[in-house]
């Protein structure tokens, strides 16, 4: 029995260690955590949208970490997010007109707060507020700007309706822009299938400011970019008469399906033998890779 205390104590230590590990895991690595430590001062900012910003996300100046996000709370009155930043005491010379922005590191990366120094002589102190902030840009908004078709026209002066028939509208839908020379002049009002003629009847609402469009103009369904949205492009004709309300555009060009394009490209080289590619005016950079 002289051996007993040693293993009893050891077992007690083991159990303690196990529970200590459990407590550590439960408090430090779960949402229970988020306690700040280290000498720092707090600065409050307001954002209209914090996106994926989280507590303990880094705060950076010129890409160098100076602190972290201490808390994120919604201000119910203004529907803004109050974000409290805990900034290291060493970095206490931040001008009070600095701009606080939410950035994303990489496409999938985490969000962090960047501070762009202002020019004010006054520095923001403990408990101060940085009023100038730029919210996080949702990816959808950025993609929309980048890939989108530039948005529809503002339709300030009312619109007039013009119809056009297409054998294929692709993924064109109501609300898509109508463009002339790349500028939005209206929007697609409706897209519907004609039960008799078996094609698609598209009604375009064109801004009344643009009432000098020749009535032999042609309409085409284009795609902005490879994966962008589709829009209707009007190519002006040469007729002296202008389009009026309820007119119809006779000359139309349907949407190009990606499959068709690829098919054309592939078939082009293999089927037409000796005069492949160059005859059709589209140079094929790569030789046909083989028969389908």
């Amino acid at each position, binding site marked *: 029995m002289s051996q*007993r205390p040693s*293993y*009893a104590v*050891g*077992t007690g*230590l*083991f*159990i303690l*260690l*196990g*529970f200590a*590990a*459990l407590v*550590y*895991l*439960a408090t*430090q*690595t*779960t*949402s*229970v*955590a*988020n306690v700040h430590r280290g000498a720092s001062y707090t600065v409050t900012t307001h954002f209209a949208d914090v996106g994926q910003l*989280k*507590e*303990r*996300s*880094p705060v950076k100046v010129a890409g160098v*970490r100076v602190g*972290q*996000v201490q808390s994120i709370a919604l201000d119910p009155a203004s529907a803004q997010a109050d974000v409290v930043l805990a900034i290291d005491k060493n970095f206490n010379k931040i001008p009070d007109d600095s701009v606080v922005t939410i950035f994303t*590191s*990489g*496409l*999938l*990366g*985490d969000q*962090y707060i960047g501070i762009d120094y202002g020019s004010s002589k006054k520095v923001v102190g403990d408990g101060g507020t940085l009023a100038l902030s730029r919210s996080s840009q949702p990816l959808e908004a950025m993609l929309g700007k980048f890939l989108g078709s530039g948005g529809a026209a503002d339709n300030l002066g009312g619109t007039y309706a013009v119809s056009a028939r297409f054998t294929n509208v692709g993924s064109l839908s109501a609300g898509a822009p109508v463009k002339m020379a790349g500028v939005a002049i209206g929007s697609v009002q409706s897209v519907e299938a004609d039960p008799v003629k078996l094609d698609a009847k598209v009604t375009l609402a064109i801004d009344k400011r643009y009432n000098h469009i020749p009535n032999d103009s042609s309409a085409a369904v284009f795609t902005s970019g490879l994966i962008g949205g589709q829009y209707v492009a009007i190519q002006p004709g040469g007729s002296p008469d202008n389009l009026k309300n309820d007119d119809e555009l006779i000359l139309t060009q349907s949407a190009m399906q990606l499959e068709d394009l690829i098919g054309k490209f592939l078939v082009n080289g293999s089927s037409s033998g000796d005069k492949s590619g160059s005859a059709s005016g589209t140079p094929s950079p790569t030789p046909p890779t083989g028969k389908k």
Partner: protein
Amino acid sequence: MSARPMRNPLLQALAQIGGCGLFLLTLLAAIPRSFKHFRETVRQLWFVGAMSLVIIMVCGLFVGLVLALQLYYVLQIFGGTAASGMVVALAIYRELGPVVTALLFAGRAGTSITAEIGLMRATDQIAAMEMMAVDPVAYVGTPRFLAGLIAMPLLCCVFCAMGILGGHLVGVTWLGIDNGTFWSNMTAAVNLHTDIVNGILLKSLAFGAAVSLIAVYQGFTTPPTSEGVAYATTRTVVASSIAILALDFVLTAFLM
């Protein structure tokens, strides 16, 4: 307890499972009687738990290290190294922690339980206990079973903590992931209930029960020869590993 040799391996396996299940009932029924031998339970806890700490801690550390390293190189492709902490934590809590701890536990503690009880049988110590009116199940079996049951979750917690530490060491100290990002991603993704309670505690409790049951059962059914002890020890590892991995799948399907 040893049966007549059966030729059909399917029947043999069925008999093993059935015998194991019945033995579990015997073990559970002996729990009240084993309270007399509380000190024995503590001694077993020391043996299977505290003595396994070193291997568990070292293995946990290395699992965390290598996991963070691998994740870093993959996530780098997508510019998502910030998610390393989160993935390390989730992978360890939900799968690697309980499973690897249980496998190590089966190898470290399960085998020695089987070998010890098997040798007791081979040297007729079990029979001697019965002669002295000491219930061998309550004195030898249940304390080891209970010790395994208690030790597994604790060991698993230690394993997970060491794994996180290892991940932090590689991710933050070595590869330079931001410390705050590492932790904030982790704390944002890890849920106390699904990951800690369901992932670590429940799973490792189940694994602990399975491994200790198999080890004690194999010990008690050892053919009383030196070859039999070797055979039973091997079977403990094989059966435990299969039980752990199969149980892991079932538990994951039900708990997640």
